[in-house]
């Protein structure tokens, strides 16, 4: 399908001049790029290039010292992570960040928490709105379970699942938030070929079926070139290239960065 088929539109997210430092370590320096609605945007770069930090800035886990983030037309320097979630930014982590003491179902249901309105008093009595909400959201969660084909592990505590499935459950939890923007931090790291193919299919399905905008960090260049519409390349906290997969592939700076040529 062509991009126009998928309805790729105006930028939904713009990152402008973001700089972030921890103590003396400068993780990001004046990074700017945008993400258009419905596109799959990849961030690549060597280890330590600041990719994860970039995602953490976008969804409010880190607070940059400089720069602005514009999401759906609203600009900000930083925000609290849970507010970013409320605005429609979903996220998975490089090292799986599931709630290990809970089942798959509960993990994904937790992703719906942000949409629930009943108070804890109503919930403890389990009537009226609280009960209705709980049942209605269960249905939404089941649709996601069905979508990601994890019916058979619904009641399994996540700690007992193999790595690949944990990754999938984490994606499910992020999807449960019905995010407009989905940030995926190395969704395929450590997977075997078959699991990678499944995950690619799911990411593309999410993008197509729900129109979700996806920003992903990935090391597997084959995957990046296959599924992303545009690619940002970071190196030592700076943006060194930005464009379609083909443009980036041919860029000499990018090649140098990956081959470790001295600056």
């Amino acid at each position, binding site marked *: 399908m062509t991009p126009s088929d998928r309805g790729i539109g105006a930028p939904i997210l713009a990152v402008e001049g973001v700089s972030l430092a*921890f*103590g003396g370590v400068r993780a990001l320096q004046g990074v700017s790029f945008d993400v258009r609605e419905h596109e799959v945007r990849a961030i690549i770069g060597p280890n330590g290039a600041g990719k*994860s930090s970039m995602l*953490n800035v976008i969804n409010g*886990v880190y607070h940059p010292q400089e720069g602005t983030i514009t999401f759906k037309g609203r600009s900000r320097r930083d925000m609290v992570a849970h507010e970013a979630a409320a605005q429609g930014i979903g996220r998975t*982590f490089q090292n799986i*960040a599931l709630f290990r003491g809970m089942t798959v179902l509960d993990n994904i249901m937790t992703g719906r928490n942000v949409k629930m309105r009943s108070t804890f008093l109503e919930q403890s009595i389990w009537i009226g709105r609280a009960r209705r909400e709980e049942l209605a959201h269960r249905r939404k969660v089941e649709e996601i379970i069905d979508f990601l084909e994890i019916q058979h592990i619904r009641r399994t505590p996540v700690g007992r699942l193999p790595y690949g499935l944990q990754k999938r459950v984490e994606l499910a939890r992020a999807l449960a938030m019905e995010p407009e923007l989905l940030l995926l931090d190395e969704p395929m790291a450590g997977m075997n070929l078959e699991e990678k193919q499944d995950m690619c299919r799911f990411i593309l399905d999410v993008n197509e079926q729900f129109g979700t905008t996806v920003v992903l960090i990935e090391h597997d260049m084959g995957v990046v070139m296959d599924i992303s519409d545009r690619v940002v390349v970071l190196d030592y906290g700076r943006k060194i290239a930005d464009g379609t997969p083909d443009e980036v592939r041919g860029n000499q700076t990018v090649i140098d960065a990956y081959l470790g040529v001295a600056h």
Partner: protein
Amino acid sequence: MGSPVSFFFEVVISGLLAGVMYSLVALGFVLIYKASGVLNFAQGAMVFFAALTFVSLVERGVNFWLAIAITLAVMIVLGILTERIVLRPLVNQPAITLFMVTIGLTFFLEGLSQGIWGSQPHGLELGIQDQPMQWLADRTGMFVSQFDLFASAVAAILVTGLALFFQRTRIGRALRAVADDHQAALAVGIPLKQIWAIVWAVAGFVALVAGLLWGARTGVQYSLTFVALKALPVLMLGGFESIAGAIVGGLIIGASEKVAEVYVGPYVGGGIESWFPYVLALVFLLFRPEGLFGEKHIDRV
């Protein structure tokens, strides 16, 4: 009776000296925390165990120094057993689990020590009177306990000894490496298990010293285990992994507690030393969560 100023100093100094006693207990916590990441709530019970064992031996006619030697041996065995039986199976468990397990250990040790030696209180005589030092009182009009000074001296020696032990000996350096990074220490061939055993033994020794001093001060009884509760705010203030922190924290807590008790206590009914150190430490932590000497950690996500 001296002037208000000298009275103030007297209060502060006695506070500082009491603080040294807190530091002494806190030191045991720090040692174990540094080496194995365990907040050993049972440190208080170890102090009690040591003091009770010593006193009971002496009461049964054992020579003072022999009693110390026996008690030290018992404490070392106890430390090593604790490390073997209780903590080793819990390697890599969350810190909070380790903390809870030491609460269990506390109960066990309390029951054990009283089960063996009986529950009745004992007096402990080290030969130093808990009386004001006449010499100082004559010169400055301030009343400072001999015993407190003696305890401070012991504490100073202990701290110096430990510092030297950490700085100069091979084991000490290994220990510091362990404290910095378990994995890395393991990778460079430091025998973690051996180190832990040594640390628990040293902690047992520190408990013995603290037990003797505190026991002489308050008598040897069940409530001696609560000295741990005195040490905890010290640690919150000074950080769980810093010997210097334990000392400075102890001094701050000791002094401020005394000052508050003397100057604020009367207005609120007294007895505030039970909670004042905690509130002080808490308020402090709210502004500096990493403690006095702790390093600021960045949560990598």
